């Protein structure tokens, strides 16, 4: 075997001599987690969609004010947090630590705002007698799917806020690299992406048309 041939084999993406996707293993791991997590949400959303379409008397409790206005604002907050996150990743790769931490803190504030607004929404619904196991309209599956989907998403946002806080702290101290910021960004964008499905399917399919 000539030397050039040997080098060719080592550099081939499949021989283990090179990184086949040209990304670090943390990022590949996060992508694989995101794909598996997306299937969890897909299963919930698809089962919700079937239940929603199969139930003719599905309740439509969401008025423009406060529910739809609030949830639209929450969508805006989450989308904006994605923008600050992606700008944070960009400045992390440019080596601007101060700016990155500032963008990450903006993202964290948006995440906290999202959870707080959503919590007031839940409290309002509990006040109206809507719980995960029953509601005044006699369709218990409404509460089950609503709180199941939004609750699982809220847990993801909360974990994301903690994750970003740790990354912001570590990156500011110089403990973490720009890759860490990018991988946490992937998680945050995924949380945003899931809300892009939950918002129309859970809220907009149950608007009160009056």
């Amino acid at each position, binding site marked *: 075997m000539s030397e050039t041939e040997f080098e060719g084999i080592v550099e081939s993406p499949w021989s283990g001599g090179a990184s086949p*996707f040209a990304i670090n293993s943390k990022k590949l791991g996060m992508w694989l987690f995101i794909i598996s997590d997306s*299937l969890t949400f897909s299963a919930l959303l698809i089962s919700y969609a079937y239940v929603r379409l199969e139930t003719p008397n599905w309740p439509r409790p969401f008025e423009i004010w406060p529910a739809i206005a609030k949830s639209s604002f929450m969508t805006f907050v989450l989308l904006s947090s994605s923008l600050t996150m992606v700008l944070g990743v960009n400045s992390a790769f440019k080596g601007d630590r101060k700016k990155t931490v500032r963008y990450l803190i903006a993202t964290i504030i948006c995440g906290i705002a999202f959870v707080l607004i959503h919590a007031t929404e839940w409290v309002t619904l509990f006040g109206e007698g809507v719980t995960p196991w029953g509601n005044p309209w006699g369709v218990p599956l409404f509460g089950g799917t609503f709180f199941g989907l939004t609750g699982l998403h809220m847990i993801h946002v909360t974990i994301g806020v903690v994750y970003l806080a740790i990354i912001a702290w570590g990156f500011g101290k110089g403990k973490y690299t720009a890759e860490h910021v990018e991988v946490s960004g992937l998680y945050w964008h995924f949380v945003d*992406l899931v809300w892009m499905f939950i918002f129309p399917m859970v809220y907009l399919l149950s608007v009160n048309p009056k």
Partner: protein
Amino acid sequence: MSAHGHAELTHEHSVGTTRLFSIVWVWLLLLTALEVFLAYERLEVHLMITILVGLSLIKAALIMSYFMHLRFERLGLFLLLVPAMVFCICMMLIMFFPDSIRLMDLRPH
């Protein structure tokens, strides 16, 4: 696709400008506004859910390709991740849930 050297690994990241990401953000907001508008057009629920999921898929594609940088990664990564996910979702959509709904309809009314 050819094998890139490791040197490129570090330089492939500063893709996308503030302007590009802001444009994507504006598009996502516009699509959301369209969804909210459509929610008040008294459409039949099957049609409505199709339109809403369609618009959401466009938004998801925008987020994945620009915010999550998938557009700037190698094609191999996309081929590893997305077809498998789409396949699994189609399996759920086509195989499992229609059966469970059929069982619901078999309940004594």
